């Protein structure tokens, strides 16, 4: 212990630590445009399914798969990232659980809506179901990010404040 350090200096240093870590957490969150792009791609895929044209599907499905994979990989690992957050400490099992719940909610919404619309013999079930899923994505994505941000802030060694 250093007896020369006064409590106000220690408190000031702790504030500096919190600020730096908050900066990292803010920088690694997925940006808002990501949800809009994925949502648009999903609706495009739904519309392609409703077209019932093999040629359209043959192009749309690989484009969708590759675009989502590339975008998501870029968010997590790619050149877009200038730092990799320490997810084991900061995100923890609570953060991982929230991500899984969000993904299942999204998939469940799209599939549930698609089957229900198809059973009701409505036109364009794929487009409508993915549009509903897109709305969940666009509205829920930023909410998920805010939630993960809160978890990461509370898991810092200096605590949530």
């Amino acid at each position, binding site marked *: *212990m*250093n007896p020369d*350090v*006064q*409590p*106000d200096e*220690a*408190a*000031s*240093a*702790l*504030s*500096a*630590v*919190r*600020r*730096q*870590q908050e*900066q*990292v*957490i803010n*920088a690694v969150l997925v940006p808002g445009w990501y949800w809009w792009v994925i949502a648009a791609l999903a609706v495009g895929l739904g519309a392609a399914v409703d077209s019932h044209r093999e040629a359209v599907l043959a192009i749309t499905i690989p484009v969708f798969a590759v675009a989502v994979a590339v975008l998501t990989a870029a968010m997590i690992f790619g*050149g877009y990232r*200038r*730092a*990799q*957050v*320490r*997810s084991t400490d*900061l995100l923890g099992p609570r953060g991982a659980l929230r991500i899984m719940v969000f993904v299942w909610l999204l998939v469940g919404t799209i599939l549930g809506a698609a089957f229900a619309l198809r059973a009701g013999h409505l036109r364009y079930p794929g487009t409508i179901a993915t549009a509903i899923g897109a709305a969940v994505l666009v509205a829920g994505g930023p909410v998920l990010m805010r939630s993960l941000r809160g978890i990461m802030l509370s898991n*810092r*060694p*200096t605590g949530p*404040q």
Partner: protein
Amino acid sequence: MIAGRFDELIHAPTRLSIVSLLAATEWADFSFVRDGVGLSDSALSKQLTTLEQAGYVEIRKGFVGKRPRTSVKLSGAGRKAFTQHVAALQEIVARSGASVLPSQV
């Protein structure tokens, strides 16, 4: 409960900022750290060399495509020293009975 251990090397404001930033990451680009702590390239290099010599950071140079890229990582020893230093700071504040709320600093 982590036992506090005040670390003079980490406590210097610039190095505390660097280590705090790195503690939240697995790794970070040199440019990310530079922008995050607001230092020039040369000033950051100097501080990172000091931390590297203490065994607190690992510096890796590589390429992304054809572009050179330097990344920095807090070592196990650096992470332990940082955690203990934060605990020491918290102990100092707690002993004084003062709040550690940033707004009250």
